[in-house]
């Protein structure tokens, strides 16, 4: 199963390597990893997405909890939560494809953030499925390059229909 884990850590050098090292030591893959400062500049929040059976995830979470620089760990997959990714897409833009690209951007509520003689750059935020669908639709029109972030996620305030 896919798990989204939120880890609050000390904002110090080496902490990220420690987290990532736990995965490499066990030969596990990290699907995505996002890090950023929190409101308190001495802490960072890491959002990590990985797959594995429940037992393995439990082991990993226990290990995270053991790390001196880890303040709090949450497996968001057990909670109702919001998850977002962002993608920047540079589209090949010819006079013929321009209207279609803009229409698609509009449908997905993506923003045009750069316009050049041969290209458009679009920005989109959404959950993983939305981003993937967006890219699938754009692909035949000629994607030049993309930069995609991993997920960032937070639990919702109201925890109804708890999964699990």
């Amino acid at each position, binding site marked *: 199963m896919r798990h989204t884990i939120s880890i609050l850590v000390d904002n110090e050098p*080496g902490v990220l*390597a*420690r987290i990532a*090292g736990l995965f490499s030591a066990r030969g596990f893959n990290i699907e995505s990893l996002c890090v950023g400062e929190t409101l308190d500049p001495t802490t960072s929040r890491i959002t990590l997405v990985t797959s594995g059976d429940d037992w393995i995830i439990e*082991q990993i979470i*226990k290990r995270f909890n*053991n790390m*001196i620089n*880890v303040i709090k760990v949450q497996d968001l997959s057990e909670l109702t939560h919001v998850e977002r990714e962002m993608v920047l897409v540079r589209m090949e833009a010819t006079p013929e494809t321009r209207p279609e690209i803009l229409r698609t951007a509009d449908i997905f509520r993506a923003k045009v953030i750069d316009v050049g003689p041969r290209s458009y750059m679009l920005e989109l935020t959404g959950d993983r499925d939305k981003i993937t669908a967006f890219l699938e639709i754009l692909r035949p029109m000629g994607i030049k390059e993309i930069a995609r972030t991993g997920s960032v996620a937070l639990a919702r305030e109201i925890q109804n229909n708890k999964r699990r």
Partner: protein
Amino acid sequence: MARMLGAEMFFETLIHEGVDVIFGLPGGYVLKVYDVMPKYGEAIKHVLSRHEQGATHMADGYARASGRPGVVLCTSGPAATNTVTGIATAQMDSSPVVVFTGQVPTPYLGSDAFQEADHIGITRPCTKHNSLVRRTRELPRAIKEAFHIATTGRPGPVLVDMPKDVLIGEDELEIPNEISLRGYKPTIRGNIAQIKRAVEIIMTAKRPVVFGGGGLIWSGATPELIELVHRLRIPVALTLMGLGAYPANDPYFMSMLGMHGSYKANMAVHESDVIISIGARFDDRATGGNFPKFAPNAKIVHIDIDPSTIDKNIRVHCPIVGDAKHVLRQMLEFIPKDLNIDRREWFGKIDEWGRQHPLLPKENSDKIMTSHLIDMLSNITNGDAIIVSDVGQHQMWVAQFYKFNRPRTHITSGGLGTMGFGFPAAMGAKFARPDEMVICVAGDGSFQMNMQELATAVENKMDLKIVLINNEHHGMVRQWQTMFFNKNYSASHFDVMPDFVKLAEAFGAKGLRAKRPEELEATLKEGLYSDGVVLMEIVVDYEEMVYPMIAPGGAMNEMILEDIEREMIVESVDMA
């Protein structure tokens, strides 16, 4: 407040922490520390090892014998990388070792400067924690944090990397009184509801067993354990790391369990209905490694200070996170003192297993058998010495035949199985407890991995005994080749062997040798009761094998016993 050098702060903080000895070896980036060292010579003794691995094992042996943290000081790059095996050894056995490494000046960090290595990166997977100090002012706090982390919760090694400019820089000394880390709050007391549940499970058990590990020793839980066992009449088996936590001369003691545990102990664990595991992590050596087949009818109560060990290998019915001593005390409150539990049936069974396949030393009129030698050593010393063993067959015979009656008298590398650990660790143990008799039992292979420390031992006029088992082989390797690799004795024999007696003499120690069974006792007695560093080389039968044995991945009741034909070859095992 007084201004002082970083190097002086280093010593001031160490003294504040109660450190009285450090094991080390100088070099470029820590020279300032060595420069100011003479000023602090009264408070802190520096032991000059001949190799940083040696220094790290010494600090580890010091920690294991005393319960206090062992301290290492060395320079950067090659020195720091030399400590890695020692650090990993300490990590696997939860020993509080604090390693201080010199580092290139901060402006050079990451530039591939002379003798630069990424100590933090290299030791990250094998330390409990590590840190790089960036400013002189921060040094005392970093040191205090290191000691705090190394010695609390589940103990473990911590490395502090000290760039040269931090050590030669000047600032005001400010040693924090207390350390509080928001991400680190070990649980000491057990959850009361869980404790009540555990007591309920134990009180209704018919065939209970205590499965005790090294955590008992680190928490000092022996008196509480004895109390619990005597009130409830529960037989006790210990892991390799747990030996000494329960007195071997007590009738409830069943000896070591696991890969080379006794038939009796392993069968009792296998047939038990309740296992009370305390400070043991159910690793593959202690359980045989066949986790699904482990103690199939037992409910498991698992007491451990480290929550990440719970449910790691074995499914636990009643976990209690906390310090063993505290948790046992809490449990005792719910167990009446005057219980009169009838366990005749259970003990009858256990005695029967003991009679079927007793664990007995071997004797031979022609050759010295190592098991017999260890048994003799146990008798001569009355089970009262601190025995530091190295790694191999001899280590297992020590565990089987030396009768350890007190905690911290059995010291060995269990988790990592580090050859070369024994001798320097024995030196560390002797520094920690100078009034005790400390004996290193080493294999010829293991001893050759750190024998340069003979110089350190002689230099420090140590009263230290080495029983060196010469079987001309990597004995344990040979045993595996015999059992699992069709007797293909590849690279297990030593074609060239030093003359160990001359070697000892070359370093200024005393050397003795016994080759014949009739010489054994006299040689041991002469060696043990001579002053100074004494190496006793004992030439033994290289064909003796350690039994019983659970082949890797086996269940506790699937022991290979002596009387099963030696030809029995188990195919395709995972070579450890």
